């Protein structure tokens, strides 16, 4: 599982970085979305992978080994929220830029040939 998980993150990061380096605002936006998936998965992975052990306590004296590490989950939740907000902002920015400059190039003008 760890290998699949790592490859998944690798591909998400690779695709995200590729898009990030593209010249069109929408591409960059998509890249940011992919990167946020990757980052979230990455943080989440730092708590290690474990199945069927959600950190929801069902006993009085819990054995910590029987539950997934809740800390990365909490961190990812925060990251998801912040990522959502910034994605929205980014979208509006790129619309504004498109409206003001007439191009969807990230630099606000078409590159010279």
């Amino acid at each position, binding site marked *: 599982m760890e290998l699949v998980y790592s490859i998944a993150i690798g591909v998400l990061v690779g695709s995200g970085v590729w898009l990030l380096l593209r010249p069109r605002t929408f591409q960059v936006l998509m890249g940011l979305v992919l990167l946020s998936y990757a980052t979230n998965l990455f943080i989440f992975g730092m708590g290690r992978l474990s199945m069927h052990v959600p950190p929801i306590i069902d006993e009085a004296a819990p054995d*910590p080994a029987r539950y997934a590490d809740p800390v990365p989950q909490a961190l990812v939740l925060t990251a998801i929220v912040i990522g959502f907000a910034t994605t929205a902002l980014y979208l509006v920015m790129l619309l504004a830029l498109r409206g003001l400059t007439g191009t969807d190039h990230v630099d606000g003008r078409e590159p010279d040939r």
Partner: protein
Amino acid sequence: MQLELIVLLPFLGSLCAAFFPSNARNAEAWLSGIVAAVCAVLVASLYGDVAGGGVVRTRIDWLPQLGVDFYLRMDGYAWLFAMLVTFVGTLVVIYSRYYMSPSDPVPRFFAFLMAFMGAMLGMVLSGNLIQLVVFWELTSLTSFMLIAYWYHRPDARRGARMAAIVTVAGGLCLLAGVLMLGQMVGSYDLDDVLQAGDAIRAHPWYAPMLVLVLLGAFTKSAQFPFHFWLPQAMAAPTPVSAYLHSATMVKAGVFLLARLWPALASTELWFWLVCGAGAASLLVGAFSATFQRDMKGVLAYSTMSHLGLITMLCGMGTELGLIAAVFHMMNHATFKASLFMATGVVDHETGTRDLKRLNGLRHAMPLTAAVAIVAAGAMAGVPLLNGFLSKEMFLEESIVAGGVSGLRFTFPALATLGSLFSVAYSLRFIHEVFFGPSTVHELPRQPHDPARMLVPSALLVGACLLVGTLPARTVGPLLETAAIAILGPVLPEYRLAVWHGFTAPLLMSLAATTGGVALYVYLYRRRMTLIRTPFLSRFDSKRMFDVANVAATRGASRLGRVLFSRRLQTQLLLIVGFAIGAGYLPLLAGGYSPGAAPLTPLDPLFALLWIGGVACAIGAAHQAKFHRLAALIMIGGAGLVTVLTFAWFSAPDLALTQIAVEVVTTVLFLLGLRWLPRRLQLDDPRRRTVRARARRTRDAVFAAAAGIGAGLLTFAVLTRPGSSTLAEFFLESSLPEGDGRNVVNVILVDFRGFDTLGEITVVGIVAITVYALLRRFRPAPDSIDVPRAQREDAARAALQEHTADALPRDYMRLPAVLVRLLFPMAWLVSLYLLLRGHNAPGGGFVGGLVMATAIIVQYMVSGTIWIESRLRVHPQVLIALGLLAAGLTGVAAWLARQPLLTSLTLDLHLPVVGDVHLSTVLLFDLGVYLLVIGGTVLMLIALAHQSLRSPRRVHAPEHAPEPRHEAEGAAG
């Protein structure tokens, strides 16, 4: 106290002067004159203390950690210079009163003049080298302001800037040199430095330090090759030229040479550098002065030449040479200042300083002529004038020093040549202006002798005469005091007298005088006095400065465009590249190894799932440019796979939240795509160029490196046993201390509620920012039109009018029925998620998102107008309330004398209902809930409102371009 007063008074005067009304010429002059005179008196009154080698000191603690105090120190040498500064200063103030036009805004002039005087005095009296540098730079600054006094003149601006750039650069070199000196000596105190001469000269840093200090001195004293700023500085008002650029400020460099003479001089390096620069300046200056057309130009180059003479004297390394240097500093100041003043008088009376136009003024301005002739005589070194005395000393020392250094003939020859030119230009200066046929009637103004304006000049000329005839009685003791201050109590034999007998210097002097007269006569006869300076005029400093300036700016612009690319891709590439490097390098250095923890057995389903996820990610990357909708859908696919992964590995809260975010994000993107005109996939030749392909390859390499790096890091951590101490604590105390079973939620609202507080603030901020942005949003012109689909569906347009209808009349009728039925259910689900989040997956955030989505869906099926006529959500209020609720819940803990965000609980037992457990964390989560609803709705609805704002032209004009915001073509 007196010392402080001497330095402080001019600055106070400056401050006062600045606040006078702009026409208060007399008041300004009185104020400044009194300040200068008082300073002069104060300085004079200290003579008793410094005569015979005494030193007056004042020290105020300032920065003891670094060995820098405010330390004023006056010895004989400083006294002499301070006297010069204050005395000439007083005269210049008087002179200025008459020189400056009544309509000139003089407060600025006098303020800066006073400030300059203060700075100069501070420099002269500095007992600490750092402090000296401070005042040194301050003189440059005030000089800049004074040169640019008539800043509307381009030459004034340029001259000021040139002077500032050269002298400040020199000052910084001096600072570097002084810093080194301080390290070498272990102190910046002048006393210590002057004591440590031998150690300094033996120090390995001596050479670089010396070069730096000399750079400072040479730039300030306009020594070759840094002299070019001085002629340009002549754009200043003439009193400024007289005061700063002949008498005092330009003397700062040679002042420093003499000041540090005991510590630095008498090495070979010193000799060659100082004498070399001095000799070059002497000759270049004198030569150039001979060919100037502007009276002030003659004086400026002459100043450079005389400063070269002084520099040479300092460089010779002989004690007599130094005494001669100090003597000539004083002499030069007197005659040159008076010459400048006379020039100003001529300019003032005739309206020009052009030597070509001025002729035979002796008839119209006899007094002026007399003053100028005497002063010029002193400049030329005519006997019975002070210039003669120091020139004789100079010639004599040139023989001595030449003998020592092995330049037996070169040195005296150079000195004689310099004197020769000096005679020539002095003669020319007088002859061109005051003699020859009178052309008075051709001048802009009819000149007369302005008696009062001549007084300062005449006083100085008087001093020239007095010193020239009775040197030993007048200046003798002063010079001795100054020399003792530098050289110590034992002085070499020297005699200040007009007549020394027939000596070699006298012969050289005679030769120079004869030669000078002959040269001028020759030039005059050949009508060569008004040509441009032979050979040297090719080096037009003004032009070179401008060229250098523009070249530097242009070069910097070009370089700056490379160093600070304006292209986002370049920046991102660099950041990504650095991050990749930062990730890989430690692994390369420290070794990469996967951990030893046992792997989780592979579930093929998970692998299959991620085959889909990977395909979606790559597909999205591939499609994002031309097929945005397809890319969006694929991103959605990748998102769902991420959700499933969270669920798979025991993170229900994450999965839940991510689902909600996915949905909202998709809607958001679609709302945005409405305003993003479609990209047409043309057969773009750019995509096929070699460069484009190379760029894509490079990006692909970066992407691959980043991906592989991320994968490697993930794998390395995943295969290591877990090591969290936090997890253990949270899992153990969640239920007993946090009263919640869902540890993630307890972390979010209790253990690390502070993070959540910050996070919801981010959401709130972004929402109001988006709102503000959209309020002034100008959509792309090609997306303003009503979408084509709506224009073509006229029937729908007609139906739409009935917003009062309870249900839509068209195809949205049934969706509306169903989706509106969903609204209360979704609301209930959102509250369910909120309320039970503490014990099971859920919480304020996901609850809020669910509620927001429910609201958005209503907008989707019913339209903005319909919904808002019935259901008012006040998102901004919700945001504010959410933030306040969360924040105040945190603050509420203070009432219980607990730190912020400490949870307070209340357990009740009610009849029928049973046990009720109330906790402030629920309130906190409620704040999150409200804020998320507000923020999300605000962002999405603000975007949706754009359709309301933009003109809804149902009947678009025929020629209107086909709006291209349509979704993917069928080939998508």
